[in-house]
Every structure is written in C-alpha cells, then in structure tokens.
C-alpha cells in the first residue's frame, strides 16, 4: 500500500513536471492538446523512473542475505517519506483546485503566492522526504536505494526541461 501511494505520487509529480516544462514554450491560444501531450510525457517519464526504481529494489531484495529485514526497513522508510510527500501533494492539489473558482484574482493569487513557491521548494521537499525516510533506517541497502530514487526524481524535471527546450529551439529555428 505504501509503495502504491509513493508510485501514485511519483506519477502526479511527473504529470506536473511535464506541464511545467512545456509552459512558456508554445504561443498558441488553444493549448489543450499541447498540454495533454506534455502531461503524458511527464507521466511516461515518471513511469520509467518508477519501473527503474522497482527493478533496483527487487534486485537489492533478491540479492540480500537478510531479505525480510531489508523489506521491513524499506517499508518503514517509504512510510516515513509519505509524511513529507503527502502534505506537499495535498497543498499543490488544493491550490490547483482553487483555480476552479471563477475569479481571476484568486486564480492568479494561487500562482503567485502558492504554486510558484511550491515549485521552488520541490527539490528541497524531495531531499527532505527521502532523508526523513532514511533517517531511522538501519540498513545500508535502504540508504543506497533512497539516494538512487532521489537522484532519479530530481533528474526527471531536468530531463523534461531539456527535451522541451530542444524541441522549442528546433521550432524557432524552423520559423526563422
């Protein structure tokens, strides 16, 4: 259950990373299709990361001489991570939901006062969540795996941004 929750949070994070990396890179007015593709790419990126992390987890668990202990330690670490990631996700989703209110001021305010700062602290939240998860873990395997997952999570937005930037460069070069 804990792993499933982390997986869903990773997909949500990927979706939002995909949207963010596409913003400001298309100047048409009707962008529903454009954003849908960007969100899909973000989710696909998060899926790749999650699969990779799961494979490494399975390899670690299979090759360990104390399999049950590793499993319990990993579950404990993952549960603790949720204490950081879930409130962050709830804050983000609540602010996105606020944008449904038909007021330009409220919608803009969510950008300026909440979604902007929440985007800024995303890497810190990732680091804090993973470190909090690993804080009381007893095994080296859990710590190494945690660092590996953190690295993957942090590289997702970077990779999506780079890809979107290259696409934009190509598009502008084709125009001029």
């Amino acid at each position, binding site marked *: 259950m804990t792993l499933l929750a982390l997986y869903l949070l990773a997909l949500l994070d990927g979706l939002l990373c995909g949207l963010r990396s596409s*913003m*400001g*890179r*298309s*100047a*048409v*007015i*009707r962008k529903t299709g454009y954003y849908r593709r960007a969100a899909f790419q973000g989710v696909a990126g998060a899926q790749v990361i999650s699969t990779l992390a799961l494979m490494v987890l399975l390899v670690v668990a299979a090759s360990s001489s104390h399999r049950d202990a590793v499993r319990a330690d990993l579950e404990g670490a993952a549960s603790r991570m949720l204490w950081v990631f879930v409130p962050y996700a709830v804050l983000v989703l609540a602010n996105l939901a606020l944008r449904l209110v038909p007021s*330009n*001021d409220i*919608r*803009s305010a969510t*950008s*300026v006062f909440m979604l*902007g*700062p929440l*985007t*800024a602290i995303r890497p810190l939240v990732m680091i804090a969540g993973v470190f909090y998860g690993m804080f009381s873990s007893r095994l080296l395997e859990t710590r190494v795996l945690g660092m590996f997952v953190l690295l993957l999570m942090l590289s997702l937005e970077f990779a999506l941004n780079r890809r979107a*930037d290259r696409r*934009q460069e190509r598009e*502008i*070069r084709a*125009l*001029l």
Partner: protein
Amino acid sequence: MTVFASWNPTQPEITDLIVQHDAWTLERVKVRKLDVLDTFSRYSNGQAMRAVKQLPEREGFLDEKEIDRHLLKVHWEMQRLAEEFYHGHRVWELLRVVIASIRHAGVRQTIRIVDVGCGIGYVTRWLAANVPLRDYSIELVGMDLNGTLINEANRLAGAEQLPCRFVQGDAFSKEHSGHIFTSTGVIHHFRGQGLPQFLGRHEQPETQAFLHFDFQPWLLAPVGAWFFHFLRMRTAVARHDGVLSAARAHGARTLSETARNALPEFASGIYGAKIWNTPAPRVFHTLIGLRRPLVEEFRRQLGRRRSRLGELR
C-alpha cells in the same frame, strides 16, 4: 549591489536596445554589441551585461537572426505570464463594458480595437479566440514596430484561424487609428516627455477610449517580480527585463495626471488598483480614458465592479 543596479528605473530594458528600427522607414538598424554593454556599464548593471554578453554577435554587431530567435523565445515566455495572470479575461472584463458604453452612445459601425505594441499579439489573439467578434461587431488589430514579432503574431493567428490581424507600423497613424486603443506592459516604456506625447496621440477623431494595462509600482513590486521571474522565466533577458519593467512602471498619479493634461477631452483615471477594496495592490493596474459623454454609462455598466474604478475625471 548588482541586483539593485538592475532595478534602476532610469535605465532602458535590454530588449529596448538589442532591436532597433529607423523611426521613419521602420528598417532594422544594426546594433553594436559594445554600445549596449556600454549603456549598462554606465548603470553598473552587471546582470544586464552578463545577459547581453551571451547574445551572439557578428563582427561586433548583434546577430540579427539570432536576436530575433531569442526575442521570440522571450515573448513566448512572456505569454506564459499573461496566461497565468488570466490577462485575456481581465482585458475583456473591462473592454466589454467600454464597448457597451460606446454602443449606448449611438456608435453603430464596427468598433476597431487597436492593440498598441502588441508583440506577438497575445491579448488580441485571446480576444479573437474567445469573444464572438461578430456579435459585438468589433475588429481586432495588433500593431508593433517590430516586424519579427508581427510576423509571428500573424503566423500564430493563422495557425488557429483567428479573426484578427497584425500590422507593422504606427498605431496612431490615420490609416490604422482605432475607436479603442489598448496596450499591455507598454506604457512604462514612455518616459519623461515621451509619456504626454504618447498619450496626446490618442486624440483622434474616431477614438472613444483607451485602456493601458501595466505593472503597478509599489514597495515590494520589484521583489515580487524578481521572485516570480526567477521561477518562471528561463532566459536571462526575460528575467532582467521583467523585473526592470516592474521597477520602471509609472505610478497611478503620474499616469492619470499626465493623461488628464494631455487629453482634456477624455475623462481619465485608474481601474483595478486594489484587490477587493483591500489595501492589497493588484500586479497590474489600468489607465483608462473615455470620451466624457461615455462616463456615466460606463459607470452604470461596470455594475458591482464600479468600486474598482478610481477617480475618473
């Protein structure tokens, strides 16, 4: 120190300098990179100098093609801010009231709305995409001196089959003059005597109103703009100019008093300065001007939004 030097409102923005046109022929003029750097060096503006140094050059002159590509990138980014601030909705919210007031005064012909310094024409294209222009009998024209931005605006409008057009040229010339002039983030570019001269040009026979949206200056505006541009903008030029724009913005009193002096036939004032009648300022405020016979109906048409209107005289 560098950060604050880049907030000095007396200096120009990078985009004011890296693209220049002959005032009469509108032909592109070559820009020497060293001249741009010298300008910012006089203001000890290290941030601007670093941004300009990154721009490609050829034999000492800024590479026009590369600059144009960069400019498009910057304007695409700027559109994102307009989208986040629901700027199209905000413009239409006020524009529809102005249009209703003009109709009430008996104007029956198509109302031409001219977007001055439209860039890639976000506001005009947004209106074209979201407003039933035929029902309102309005025509949308975006104007800018920069040919690259106008070409891009036309391309984007064409790609979505939007009923609007964009023209490179002087928005206040006789052949392009409009019933309503509007602009976004443009008016702070007119400084000193340039501001009354710009506003004075609205005095045209058919012109009924103008709406100029721009940053609202207040103590924390440059700090807020810095933070927001740091998070949202990707190019050094956009990060620099966005914040400097907020620092250069004219205050409500300067705008309304200058408009009143330059355009005595219009009632001028500020709309939308505060959020919900609280002391909290909106990011943008609007300099609004109306032919005097329109004022009473305009106030009536505003309805519950009337409280957003400052002194209109």
